[in-house]
């Protein structure tokens, strides 16, 4: 009887690992809870088992949206194969109430056949594959990897944003607020029992992202856009612009509640997507229209572009020089920097390099995650 029960446990552990490999954050407690519901016999009802595991294993909406499909993929064949057998057993179990769960579970969830295991192994994104995907250039992602990369990016960006948030948090208590402490003490005969504290001023980081969405950046701009969307959650003062032949202020579109809606709005409203590149003119437009509002010595400006300028290099150089003068730090992220043997010898880049505080690559997940350090340092 014990061995039979262990078989089911193994199966459930396999599913937990399967979820973990798909970036679900699951610890031993979740596995224990899953066992608890199975031992109570809730696995007899497929829907109930699915919804129960969903409530236990999902921790965020993104997990919630993916879970049903994952559950189907993993458990379907077991439920289908044994459906007929199960019907008979349930009848039998009604007569033998005490042993019901154990008998059912034992026959229902056997160790997967070898070929099934091999198939699942192929479907699984293991640790090595995660590393490989992190290092894959966005422009070289094939169709089969795209979905996995999406999932990985989502989770890693989330983890990064949580780290951002923790670092940006300051302790709330400052020094003692004497005025309020005395005021609080009035009804206590002047005894200062209730100390009031000043609230420590939080350091506000203001960031402006200017993303190149021209044709030459096509393979990168989607991931860079997602990256900025994640950062927006944690930098309250983040402004976001896109440009190709002209500039678009995207920040108001980031107000929508869900990511799909944001992407849809940007897709509809940014008309110049995938067109030519006029970096200089676009940055000049940024300076003249938005410069007074979004440039100060508190602002970090991040330009995400390959620097392949088709307009005037003089205009570009002047615009970058002015932006650098008016902001605290200017960072340029260039996806081409990740290419082997890359040298910033294009006219556009050669002219702007002297004005940059940092020049980094942004061609794969790994390089985007490393930007965390750059942004925190500045």
């Amino acid at each position, binding site marked *: 009887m014990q061995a039979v029960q262990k078989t089911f446990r193994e199966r459930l552990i396999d599913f937990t690992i399967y979820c973990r490999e798909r970036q679900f954050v699951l610890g031993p407690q979740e596995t224990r809870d899953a066992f608890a519901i199975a031992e109570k016999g809730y696995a007899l009802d497929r*829907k*109930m088992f699915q919804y129960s595991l969903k409530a236990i294993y*999902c921790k965020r909406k993104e997990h919630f949206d993916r879970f049903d499909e994952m559950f189907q993929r993993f458990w379907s064949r077991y439920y289908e194969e044994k459906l007929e057998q199960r019907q008979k057993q349930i009848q039998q179990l009604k007569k033998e109430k005490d042993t019901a769960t154990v008998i059912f579970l034992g026959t229902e969830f056997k160790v997967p056949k070898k070929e099934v295991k091999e198939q699942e192994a192929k479907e699984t994104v293991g640790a090595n594959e995660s590393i490989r995907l992190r290092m894959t250039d966005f422009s070289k992602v094939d169709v089969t990897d795209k979905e996995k990369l999406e999932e990985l990016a989502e989770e890693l960006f989330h983890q990064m944003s949580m780290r951002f948030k923790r670092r940006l948090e300051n302790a*709330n208590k400052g020094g003692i607020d004497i005025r309020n402490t005395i005021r609080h003490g009035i009804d206590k005969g002047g005894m200062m029992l209730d100390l009031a504290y000043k609230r420590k001023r939080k350091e506000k980081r203001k960031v402006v992202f200017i993303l190149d969405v021209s044709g030459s950046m096509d393979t990168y701009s989607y991931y860079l856009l997602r990256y900025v969307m994640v950062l927006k959650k944690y930098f309250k003062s983040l402004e976001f612009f896109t440009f190709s032949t002209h500039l678009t202020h995207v920040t108001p579109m980031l107000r929508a509640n869900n990511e799909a809606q944001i992407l849809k*709005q940007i897709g509809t409203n940014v008309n110049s997507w995938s067109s030519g590149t006029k970096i200089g003119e676009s940055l000049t437009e940024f300076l003249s229209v938005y410069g007074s509002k979004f440039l100060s010595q508190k602002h970090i400006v991040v330009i995400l572009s390959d620097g392949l300028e088709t307009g005037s290099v003089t205009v570009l150089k002047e615009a970058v020089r002015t932006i650098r003068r008016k902001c605290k730090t200017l960072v340029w992220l260039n996806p081409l920097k990740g290419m082997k043997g890359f040298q910033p010898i294009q006219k556009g880049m050669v002219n702007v390099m002297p004005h940059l505080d940092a020049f980094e690559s942004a061609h794969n997940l790994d390089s985007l995650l490393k930007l965390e350090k750059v942004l925190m340092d500045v």
Partner: protein
Amino acid sequence: MNKDIEALIQDFYAHDYILNEELATSIFLLKNLEKPLLLEGNPGVGKTMLAKTLAEHLGTNLIRLQCYEGLDVSTTIYEWNYQKQLLHIKLFEQEKDKKALGNKIFGMDYVLQRPLLQSISADKPVVLLIDEIDRADEEFEAYLLELLSDFQISIPELGTITAKTKPLVILTSNRTRELSDALRRRCLYHWVDFPSKAKEIDIIAKKLPTIDEELATQVVTFIHNLRKSSLHKPPGIAESLDWAKTLLLMNQKNITDEIVHNTIGSVLKHKDDVEFVRNKTVQEFLVPVS
């Protein structure tokens, strides 16, 4: 469907709350695994109402903690009753054993219980609603961890206070900020979406039994089409109900352009959204929703 789940759905229905099987399973686990349930979703989808209905279903009290920025231990867990302590000190001024006096005034009798402490001190399990946790600071989330995982609270002078009875904890969040992984790990999770058209018609019919079926269908179709538009604040179920109630009070049988113009304020709460709707015809929003 599992009988327990079915019974739960029926009982909630009797309390005017329409549960689907998935959400009912989460509620069932909340009761049986004794783990908090984190509900996320857009404003107005019925997260808070769910906690209220759960309390009614169990015939127990609901203790609600509305979160906001700056929430701290003294407003959520406990506060010392300083006035009472001072009076005690004055009364026993001549007492020589000052240590005993100190121990006395920092005892349980001098604690003012706030919602979280109340919830674990109750004689009968209560429903504890921690509403809009995303509005509170991260420090407050940290305070909550001990309560959510072990149902206990530590007070430096008194030690650890373990729950007499475990409350059923529901946390809600509108996702205005990300919650910590530590908090999420301690909870069951459910994303509460806007209801399907049929379910929303059911909700309106349940809450407003005198409403004409055609009018309810029109209201829901209109609202569902609005939710598909890019609005600053998409209307929730509460807005659907408010609007249906308004139309009912005005004895309307159909939604017309004039009615929309005059009453849309009960549905949309943002100037740009109102203008967006007023610039369109009612027919555009009465297109059947797939």
